[in-house]
């Protein structure tokens, strides 16, 4: 009942030419490390990357409607979710959530905005004027 471990050799564009390794058996039945490429992994990564792109595009529409703030856009741009962003700026989640609204964003002080600009590695004015 020797179970064989197949080593996939499919392209994976998300790895920029790197090949990862996995364990499989050699002809003597001993485990060894082998390079592999998996299109299943490629697809899963691409879905995650595209999801952030979609979130960004949807956010741009809401910014134009005056609903969402640039902070929400850059949260997705930096592949963050609310807990990650809140931890990065060192504020409570409920507070960060308010800052994702354009109406609140427009009343925020420069000092407060700067904390976000630093996390996103942006110029303060760029963040303020982003539409």
């Amino acid at each position, binding site marked *: 009942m020797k179970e064989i471990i197949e080593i996939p050799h499919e392209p994976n564009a998300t790895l*920029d030419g790197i090949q*990862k*390794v996995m364990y499989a058996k050699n002809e003597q039945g001993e485990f060894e490390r082998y390079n592999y490429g*998996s299109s*299943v*992994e490629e697809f899963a*990564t691409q879905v995650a990357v595209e999801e952030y792109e979609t979130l960004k595009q949807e956010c741009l529409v809401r910014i134009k409607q005056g609903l969402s703030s640039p902070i929400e856009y850059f949260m997705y741009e930096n592949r963050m979710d609310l*807990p*990650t962003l809140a931890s990065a700026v060192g504020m409570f989640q409920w507070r960060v959530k308010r800052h994702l609204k354009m109406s609140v964003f427009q009343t925020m002080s420069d000092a407060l905005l700067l904390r976000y600009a630093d996390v996103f590695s942006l110029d303060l004015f760029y963040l303020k004027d982003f539409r």
Partner: protein
Amino acid sequence: MSQELSFTHSQFAHCESGVTSTLFSAYGFKISEPMAFGITSALTFVYLPFVKVNNLPLIAYRSLPKSIINTISKVLHVTMEKRSYKDEHQANEELKSLTKEGKLVGLQTSVYYLPYFPKDMRFHFNAHNLLVYGMEGEEYLISDPVFEEAVKCSQDGLTKARFAKGVFAPKGFLYYPKTMPQSVDMHSALKKAIVKNAKSMLTPFPFAGVKGMRRLAKKIESLQTETNTRYVKNYLTHIVRMQEEIGTGGGGFRFLYAAFLEEAKTYGLNAEVLTEASELIVKSGNTLREFALYCVEGSRKIEKLDTQKIAAKLVEASEYEEKAFRVLKNL
């Protein structure tokens, strides 16, 4: 430091067990990656629907970050130097002086901020382990177990990665062994580690081990009636990413553990039991890989989604694991 480090970069299936293997081998105690993984009872399954990552549940196929590093010092009775920092400057100065002494040190980092990672792989995963083995100008020389060759990283990039915030925030965590194991009783250490791992996989807690796999399978089945297809697609591929990408590939943690059981045979444990369990865990690994393929197929053609078929594969894998760990529990 008096002893010479015989350091060679190697690529591994999983970052924490890989780093541990290179680190201990360099300091004079040869240990393979599967051995580092197995002797710390690192195989697991956890599905926590109430802990969210990007609005999706936490799913893990191996133990918590840092657990291999913390457990190995207990199992092998060695002292590890472990430091966390509040101050970035101090963290950098200490790292610099350690590399000047010629020490090889492990670091916990966030993948997102490491500039040498491919763009598509950079997500906020805070528990990536790598080794620093020197400096060249202002750049650190790094042995990253995910990469085929050694890499370099600027001090700024590395500092950002060491001080990323969020879940499992690394806080500049740095580690290296201070003492080396003296005459380890591998026979009893391995027996304990395997039985411990078997117990954790057979736990009655419904969100972990084989029960956790079945719980997740039930959840997958329930996605059949979910009308938000974007959510379903994200959910299924999220499972695949947690299984395949965070550290290793292709049901890789299962193959890693199977390799460990094979290696454990050389220490006088019951070879028959280990062979049987190893084969079953390979089967589970292969089944998990099919499961991942079904998840991807389901999200590609969402109109043809058959969640029962996907869930059944996961249940099948859980059955192999239950059998394997029932055998191993009585080793």
